[in-house]
């Protein structure tokens, strides 16, 4: 029948088939649902009666999401049990570019890991050498370690020193940059961290890509709520090159 640009945005039903907890703050959900999404693209997850939010698929078949408890929405998500049903629409946005990248460094801060884990696998499948820098606050927030170690050299930092290097991933990254050459640095994490990574990339003159977060109300490029300067994170992003970000005065300035 009719399949239109509009229809593609309808929610599909997704039943939860598995939930794993990592510490108090992170859960990994698996859904009876599959989709096609490039690393860096995102989906919108709808909890009827609560709202909808963007998330980065950490697997696509079946769909898997890694979620950090932050505010009201994610708190409600943490109450979900196997068998519960949510709505999923997407994928949305532009993913990471990884063609011709031979040596990559991925830098994940906290739940930023969600956007990068599939990218590490894809890069490695494409024959790239991947270093993976991963910083969290404490040990129990670490997820996907096994998956990452299969495809990349992993460097972990925890703020409390409970695993890997004590400190932030910025320090780890600095150390790597002192000795290694990368074609591209990929980064997702809290915005202050990304600002620091961008500064380092400039300093070493390395190409970079960042996956950004903004509040999203439509995800289809009409409401304007996700704007970063005059870019739309939902359509033009969420992945932006360091070069683009450097030219946007609003980077690091949002609610």
């Amino acid at each position, binding site marked *: *029948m009719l399949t239109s640009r509009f229809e593609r945005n309808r929610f599909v039903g997704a039943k939860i088939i598995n939930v794993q907890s990592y510490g108090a703050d992170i859960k990994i959900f698996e859904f009876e649902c599959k989709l096609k999404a490039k690393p860096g693209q995102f989906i919108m997850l709808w909890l009827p*009666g609560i709202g909808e939010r963007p998330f980065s698929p950490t697997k696509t078949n079946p769909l898997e999401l890694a979620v950090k408890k932050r505010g009201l929405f994610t708190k409600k998500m943490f109450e979900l049990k196997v068998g519960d049903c949510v709505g999923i629409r997407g994928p949305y946005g532009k993913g990471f570019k990884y063609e011709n990248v031979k040596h990559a460094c991925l830098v994940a801060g906290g739940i930023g890991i969600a956007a990068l884990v599939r990218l590490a696998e894809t890069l490695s499948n494409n024959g790239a050498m991947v270093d993976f820098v991963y910083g969290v606050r404490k040990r129990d927030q670490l997820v996907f370690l096994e998956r990452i170690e299969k495809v990349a050299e992993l460097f972990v930092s925890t703020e409390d020193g409970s695993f890997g290097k004590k400190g932030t991933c910025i320090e780890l990254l600095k150390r790597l940059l002192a000795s290694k050459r990368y074609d591209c640095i990929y980064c997702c994490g809290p915005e202050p961290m990304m600002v620091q990574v961008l500064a380092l990339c400039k300093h070493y003159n390395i190409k970079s890509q960042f996956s950004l977060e903004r509040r999203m109300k439509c995800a289809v490029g009409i409401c304007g709520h996700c704007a970063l300067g005059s870019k739309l994170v939902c359509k033009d992003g969420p992945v932006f090159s360091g070069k683009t970000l450097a030219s946007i005065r609003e980077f690091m300035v949002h609610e």
Partner: protein
Amino acid sequence: MDLQASICGIKLKNPLVLASGVLGLNKNNLLIAQRGGAGALTIKSITLEKRSGHDTPNVAFFEAGVLNAFGYCNMGLSAALEEFADLSCFSVPIFGSCTASNARDFAKLVSAFDKLDFAAIELPVSCPHTPSYGLLAGQSNVEKVRAIIKACRKETKKPIFLKINAGLPNFVEIALAAEKAGADAITCSNTLGPGMVIDINTAKPVLSFKVGGVSGPAIRPMVVRAIYELYEHLKIPIIGLGGVSQGEHVIEMLMAGASAVGIATGILQRGPCVFRKCCEELSRWMKEHGYGSIEELIGFAHQ
């Protein structure tokens, strides 16, 4: 092909207008649509106070269009006065849009907007899904609309566009009353309905507000018919909008009687450059069919 158009004496390089509510939250937003080729830009409607609007989901989709219920989420008048104080970054006319629950508040907003460099001020009295505004404030009532226009007319010499709802049985009377009370143009139409989309998996309405205004292809025939009717009754010009995303839709609206044509949902279909694409299609068609100016098309279906 020269696509120059004009509305209430405002010159437009082309007849395509960014409709209120899409990419109009702030200047950065508007710049996106300006880059996309729009001939004029309308800001998202501003209310006296800042509003956080309805919860997400604010949009719901069906095969023939979109439903939205943002609930007039906007920065409020005082922030807007700052945001839009300097419009020098724009090369096309900017239309202010503001809305309120009653004539007095409309007048306050218009009085404040009068000081800004907006080329015109649009007043939606026709939103079908925000409590205390538009249809949910009873602004389908001819008397109320008359009072709103009269109150606003006192506050500004700028052109006033009244934005109506083509779904109302009395839309012609509303437009005529507005014309008589001093409105300079009619914008037709706001979203229709409201409508509802139910997600069958969860058995819940998709929109958090349950119902929302319908836009996109679904509403174009009703809007075209309303423009056709208005053109037969009004002396003031009409800005047509509803379901436009291609050059031929623009032509249809012009032929029905619109002097300019707005686009909202079309941005979802073809991106912000929908304006440029429509202009290209429009001028190719005009060339092929021997039309020399936009003016020749306006109301041509009435001959």
